[in-house]
């Protein structure tokens, strides 16, 4: 034991183990309390490297890196992150023109892919690997070698006991009904009892010249699974990291909005937004097809005493009725897409993160031509689906036209000329729009957000401030624009859904690693690793004296119970003399 190098220089439990067993090098006793300050040795490059490696793989470094990792993760919850919402990041930077760029340079908006965050977890995992390998090797040796040698003084162990047995020749027969065992017999019995308690056992008899067993000891150890669990846990963490990384590299994720009766074919050009992993290639996209046949929303309609209840109008369920086709040659199938119930298509999953209303409008230009006709995606802003609507009509002649405003599913006039939506369903759908004309700025090819209309360089046609007033339309209504620049007609309302399509081949492996990590963790935390030794000797009176000691590696809150259990097993097996006669106690 003492000759084996410890896999951990600063493992407090190993210190304690050595101290209790009396095998520790004096060094581990001396600085058991004070962290060792390793001096930088003047050993040249190789020496430096070895020193650095030792430092990196020490428990204390691992602890520091863990704590550092926790601290480093925090800014990601304080500042908006690009992985989640790049618009929010841009808005934050625009709002804080001095601090924003500085934080951006420090990668505060990409915390989890930043250099510093990656450095911490990579160092941690290198440390982890440097830690597991020697530990696993050492444990492998321990599992295959005999239990540790018997300490000289069992009474120094945390749990200790001794029993004196009746004389083997029946000298005590007057006091007790049966004679005690010989040392040889006692040694065998002790080994048997320990084996029954699932210890791994080695018997170490000492013989005199005649070959008789006069004394000896049994070394025993159990709970090797504790360390196996610990190693499994840490290895599984490495597995999680590897598969998270691999999965992310081959993954893709995309978003698409589908209006009722529209279809989508899984191809790069069809996406509204697409985020490929580093090693994504286009032929990973299986050409499946989805078509939105119908969409249903359910809202809370609970009445309390005839009045709307406290959650009246809250969304309860969304269900999209879709037709899917796995591949060009496959049969179309009717399926349902709901929140929490993704569809699995061609290895990818399809989710339903959002939905809304798409009013169908037709815009005629100043020359009477239809410049736009179709559904316009509006963005719901609140629980009543008051939705932002932006419509750009660059094809209109002689002036390009733009519309900005609200779609209200159940419009209600508040009295001061402002309308709000009071319900998410289509009880009184209305469009409330302002209109503009001028150069929409779409012709020079700069990409624009379709949900934002820059109105600074445009002339106002309709708004509450102008003589013409704002545009207010119910389905079927048409309104002429001022100056003969055209007209807008509100034809009806369609539903749309926003779908997310994600593909991540690492998911299953990550889950498996997470589960084995948990299994390892539970085994490691709740298995007890125990060592037991029994020594047998003959007293001057010729009786057999059995001593035993117990020691645990790591936490063991029931070592005393083990002591008591062992003792009662001994008392069952042997005629034990009463304690007051027991000279050793």
């Amino acid at each position, binding site marked *: 034991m003492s000759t084996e190098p410890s896999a951990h220089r600063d493992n*407090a*439990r190993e210190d*304690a183990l050595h*101290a*209790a067993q009396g095998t520790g090098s004096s060094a581990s006793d001396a*600085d*058991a*309390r004070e*962290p060792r300050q390793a001096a930088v040795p003047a050993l040249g490059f190789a020496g430096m490297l070895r020193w650095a490696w030792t430092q990196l793989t020490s*428990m204390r470094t691992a*602890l520091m890196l863990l*704590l550092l*990792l*926790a601290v480093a*993760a*925090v800014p990601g*919850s304080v500042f908006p992150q690009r*992985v*989640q919402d790049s618009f929010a990041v841009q808005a934050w930077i625009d709002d804080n023109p001095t601090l924003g760029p500085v934080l951006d340079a420090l990668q505060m908006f990409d915390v*989890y892919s930043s250099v510093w965050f990656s450095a911490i977890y990579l160092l941690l995992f290198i440390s982890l690997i440097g830690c597991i390998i020697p530990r696993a090797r050492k444990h492998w040796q321990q599992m295959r070698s005999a239990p540790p040698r018997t300490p000289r003084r069992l009474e*120094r162990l*945390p*749990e200790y*006991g*001794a029993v004196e047995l009746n004389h083997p020749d029946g000298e005590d027969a007057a006091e007790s009904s049966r004679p005690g065992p010989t040392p040889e017999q006692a040694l065998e019995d002790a080994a048997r009892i320990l084996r029954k308690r699932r210890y791994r056992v080695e018997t170490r008899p000492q013989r005199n010249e005649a070959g008789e067993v006069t004394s000896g000891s049994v070394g025993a150890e159990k709970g090797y699974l504790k360390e196996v669990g610990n190693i499994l846990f840490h290895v599984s963490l490495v597995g999680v990291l590897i598969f998270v990384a691999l999965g992310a590299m081959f993954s893709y994720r995309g978003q698409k909005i589908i209006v009722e009766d529209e279809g989508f074919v899984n191809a790069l050009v069809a996406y509204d937004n697409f985020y490929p992993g580093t090693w994504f290639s286009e032929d990973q996209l299986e050409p499946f097809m989805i078509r939105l046949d*119908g*969409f*249903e929303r*359910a809202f809370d309609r609970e009445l*309390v005493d005839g009045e709307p*209840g406290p*959650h009246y109008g*809250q969304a*309860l*369920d969304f269900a*999209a*009725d879709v037709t899917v086709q796995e591949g060009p040659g496959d049969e179309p199938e009717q399926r349902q897409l*709901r*929140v*929490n119930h993704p569809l699995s298509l061609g290895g990818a999953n399809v*989710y339903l*993160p959002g939905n809304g209303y798409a009013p169908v409008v037709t815009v005629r230009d100043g020359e009477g031509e239809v410049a736009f006709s179709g559904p316009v995606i509006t963005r719901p802003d609140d629980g009543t689906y008051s939705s932002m609507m932006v419509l750009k009509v660059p094809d209109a002649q002689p002036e390009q036209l733009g519309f900005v405003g609200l779609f209200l599913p159940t419009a209600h006039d508040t009295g001061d000329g402002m309308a709000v939506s009071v319900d998410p369903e289509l009880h009184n759908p209305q469009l409330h729009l302002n209109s503009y004309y001028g150069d929409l700025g779409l012709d020079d090819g700069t990409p624009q957000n379709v949900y934002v209309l820059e109105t600074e360089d445009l002339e106002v046609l309709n708004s509450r401030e102008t003589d013409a007033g704002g545009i207010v339309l119910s389905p079927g209504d048409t309104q002429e624009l001022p100056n003969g620049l055209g007209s807008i007609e509100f034809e009806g309302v369609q539903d749309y859904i926003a779908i997310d399509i*994600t593909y*991540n081949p690492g998911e299953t492996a990550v*889950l498996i690693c*997470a589960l084995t*990590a*948990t299994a390892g*963790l*539970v085994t490691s935390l709740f298995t007890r690793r125990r060592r037991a030794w029994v020594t047998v000797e003959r007293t001057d009176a010729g009786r057999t004296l059995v001593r035993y000691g117990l*020691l645990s590696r*790591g*936490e*063991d*809150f029931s*070592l*005393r119970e083990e*002591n008591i259990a062992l*003792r009662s097993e001994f008392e069952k097996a042997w005629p034990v003399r009463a304690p007051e006669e*027991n000279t050793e106690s």
Partner: protein
Amino acid sequence: MTIPVLTVQLPSINVQLAEYSELFTLISACLYTLAFILFTVDTARSSATIRRVEAELAAEQSSSRERVGAAAGTASSGAAASEASASPATSGSGTGAPGAADRPEGTSAGSAAAEPELVDADMAYLGTRRPFANVAIALTAVGAAGHAFAVVARGLAASRWPLGNMYEFLVGAALVVTVVYLAALLRRDLRFLGIFVLGLVVTMMVAATIGFPTPVGHVQPALQSPWIAIHVSLAVLAISLFTLTFAMNVLQLVQSRREKALESAGGEGRFERTVARWQFMRLVPQAFSLESWAYRLNAVAFVFWTVGPLITGAIWAQQSWGRYWGWDPKEVWTFVIWVVYAGYLHARATRGWTGNRAAWLSIIGFGCIIINYAVVNVFFPGLHSYAGLPE
């Protein structure tokens, strides 16, 4: 061409039952407040309790002397005990020999000669009468029964798992804290924790009913999943255990200061000297045993946290949002908490970090939990923003 596709029709809310639920929540909150007051009185009267215990002890002393001596031959040796008490810096924790080093019979010979130990290191009941604390416990038990009814009734009223918003989360967590505490009381004398546990429970109940009052209702589509039962319940379980260990670790720090002050006979700083005079701390177990109990609970709670918020959270996120981990503020803090407690478990195995330093990590971990629920839910927007907060 709109086909009616909805298959789920949610059952309507049982308003009557919902009202009973709210009533019983209030009743139990009142009972807990009373219990808290009684625990405070018990704490304030600790010197009287101590005098009574000392009298009892003195009466017992003479008769028990022999019994201890003849403790069936398993008595730990004096050598081990004195070794353990010679390492006060680590409070004897993590020495791999927790069983023996700290038993009353081992220590009574050493440092505590001036003041006999009044409590057991295993926190077993020693038959001490503490009438105020006992009535407080009875009130807590009655309160917990009403509280349990309130939570079940709320779930039945809405026909769903009653952990769907901040209000229900707080009320549920308060119930689990109380039940875990009461269950532990059956086996261990944790009366010294009462003032802290009830203080936290009352705080949670007040925060729920005044801070986030939410009438019974259905939950939004994303929350209608069987995972909510596993995910949130495990989180609640873990948090209630972390709450208990938080109180124990704080007491441990105070107690170890006190032990140090007593050992060096007042040569320490002012805080230590003040603490040394706090009579109540004599009814609190030794720092070492607080530490090892806190560790046992923290280990269980860590497993719950791993399986609950972390793993089932990721599975559910994968099903609901299409990715298993996306660094949403709530996910960030779940991760931070996990790493801090992993650090705590590590620290206990690292030389120089056992004992009080590890306790600080456990306390910081609890601080992170508070941030996760009190700050993140309220101030940080994210996918988890369905805490049911008033807008």
